[in-house]
């Protein structure tokens, strides 16, 4: 019942053999060893598994492989090409905007995508975008502060490398 799927993940062409109903999340974690996207609910309701697919933030737990064929996917590991952290991740670290950290990679993907498509996003826009992400430890306000900081530190608008 397995099929081969070809897609681009973090700038690399990959081929994954799996069942068409396997979620993109499980393919990323188990076939490609990318543990940054995390399993939180399996229903697309918490954001822990967020990845960027063709420029849009999607819940990878809720995305079957049959619908990921030919797509361009960026996970938290690929937010910053090369070594180092994306400026949103760096700001989250600087602000210590995490307690358990389980939700934070999904938040980083969402916030980084927002800032790359809307570099002037204000607090309201940031909060609206992040309303799709749940956090149980209560670091929401630290996260918002961090994303605002990342925004103000970026002088130039970076075009998402995966935009269509």
């Amino acid at each position, binding site marked *: 019942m397995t099929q081969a799927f070809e897609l681009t993940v973090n700038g690399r062409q990959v081929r994954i053999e799996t069942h068409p109903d396997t979620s993109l999340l499980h393919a990323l974690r188990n076939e490609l060893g990318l543990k940054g996207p995390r399993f939180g609910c399996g229903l697309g309701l918490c954001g822990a598994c967020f990845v960027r697919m063709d420029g849009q933030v999607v819940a990878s737990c809720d995305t079957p492989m049959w619908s990921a064929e030919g797509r361009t996917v960026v996970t938290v590991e690929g937010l910053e090409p090369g070594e180092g*952290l994306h400026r949103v991740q760096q700001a989250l670290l600087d602000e210590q905007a995490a307690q358990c950290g389980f939700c934070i990679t999904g938040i980083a993907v969402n916030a980084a995508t927002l800032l790359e498509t809307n570099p002037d996003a204000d607090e309201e826009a940031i909060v609206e975008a992040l309303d799709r992400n749940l956090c149980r430890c209560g670091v929401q306000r630290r996260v918002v502060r961090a994303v605002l900081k990342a925004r103000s530190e970026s002088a130039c608008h970076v075009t998402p490398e995966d935009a269509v």
Partner: protein
Amino acid sequence: MTVEREIVRTPILPQDLAANPVLSRWVTVHPGGTVDVRVGKVELGQGILTALAQIAAEELGVDLEQVRMQPANTARGPNEGGTSGSMSIIHSGSAVRAACAQVRAKFAAEAALRWGVGPDRVTVRQGVIRCDERTMSYGELAGVVDLDVPADPCGPLGGDRPALVGKSAARLDLPDKIAGRPRYIHDLDLPGQLSGRVLRPPSPGATLLHVDEGRLADLDVQLVRDGSFVGVVGADEAEVMRAVKVLRDATTWEESDSLPDEDDLSTFLRSGPHETIEVLIPEGPPPGGHTIQATYSRPFLAHGSMAPSCGIARWNDDGTLSVWSHSQGIHGLGAAIARALDIDVERIEVEHAENAGCYGHNGADDAAFDAVLLARDVPGRPVQVQWSRQDELAWSPLASAMSADVRAVVDDSGSVLSWRYDVWSQGHTSRPGYLGVPGLLAGAYLERPLRYPAPADPPAASGAGTVRNGVPIYDFPDRGVTGHRLLETPIRTSAMRALGAYMNVFAIESFMDELALSAGADPLEYRLRHLGDARGQTVLETAARAAGWGTPVEEGVGLGIGFARYKDKGAYCAVVAEVEAESDIRLRRLTIAVDVGMVVNPDGVRNQIEGGATQAASWTLKERVRFDRRRITSDDWESYPILRFSEAPEVSVEIVEAPGVPSVGAGEAAQGPTAAAIANAVAAAVGVRVRDLPLTTDAVVAAIEASGD
């Protein structure tokens, strides 16, 4: 005649070091100069390992970067019991401090011996052991100094080298977690690891009648069944997940109604039988005065950790069992597994692996036991069991619903003459091993079932459960406090952040505002009038000042205050909430003052208080476990909503310095005061009191409408 007495310190080690005295259990120095530190406390997302690393680095005289905190392990590390009750910085902190101070003294003494100088001439800083111009490193003496020796009760206990402690240190684990590097138990990929899933029954009272095994024939998985416990194991996680869906349709169950009426929990909680917990027996009220009374309640709550529970187990060829778990108490888990399966506890090794935030006894231990049961059928292979979100919300232990009556007799000025408090609740612990039973979820569904009794309460010395913070901090002339713990219940409850304190402080501090209103007094002034505790006064006044207490607020906005000293001897915490009640109830801001004694990591304390208060706001404004007479129905984030980014209040925290006062924990101090502050702010904003949690917009509107009748 004069008698000369030599003043000596009582030779007593900190309790966790006394229980695990051999220094090599705590510390290993490597030739390269890094130092492994092993503790029994575990990282739950609260940052404890960073605080303990700060203490270790300070006492050893090394840089923080030289210290490597190791995962807790039943075979290799010290046994410090569980990680709960905001006790880690007290118990583990003092043990690590003393152990590391003694290790440092041994290295300094060895260097002194080699140099032929007195040990008092040797200093240790930044990993360099020095006497005048001569230096040596920890690493050079690593193979020489013997740490397989017990700590010396008359030796140094540390605490006299304030260098790192008191300064904010960045969390050691966050770089991995923010970068997305493997770090959690979900990310572990042991050699030969298989994936497992358990099919939980459709309802708690269900019995498995039949499994149509043929339905699984096309799937590459192995079925495991023991009574009504049923699951699958296979190499491919996605295949295992498909199989468990098929299995749901391939099983036949007998179900029965077993749950109480969710809409009348007060009657359920008060119907008994109960254990009566006499906390304060009243002496009898002074004559006169008039009586005011009220009843408060909270529903059942869920932990709602962002990651569903996960466990890994491997039955080894030599008959031993290896378990990886995000349990709060790896030793208790090992003992419970041994008891459940009737095997020698010495043959079980449990290692802690990090997971998402843990706020009490959640499904961690149960998931580990699931893995043990599934792995039994595939000896030699590790099996990783991952719970679903639905299982996490519906099958983890819950926090108990509670109901409380408060009654006060007040004099003509409105001051309290007499106070009575009665609270009804289920017990607040069913941790592995409680009441002598394993207490592991799957145990109740095995062919030879391991039943568990109604949840118990921790002993008073550990802060109690139902009656935690049931005694008001105020100096009332006559006080009576009684708990009533339910002894029969179909609902499994256990410890969640602050246990009964969340509800008790909500009730006490809501009622203080009701009394103040009745007395025509300002709520802050009314509290201070009854409060003799000087540290408490400072914390209350600090929070009030920071929040601009006493200055006029806009129409439709209310300020409310809540205050307590956690567990009567822990952190003082005062919270001022600012609530806007227009089209809906919106919590704008929480202004908090806290006194935790000596502060190890100020940003760590702030983060714990901010997070605790934000989580308490979520419980208070939104949360309620829903169920019908058969099963829990709030099993995803739509049916069990929690606070979102757009609802999270601004939180500011002022730390009230108390240098020289021993550290107490911060993780749970804000829970109760936050609930009360919000309730009092809502009442101030709308002029109507809501006494039953959660304080949803619907509940407030209903109360307003009822008040107009």
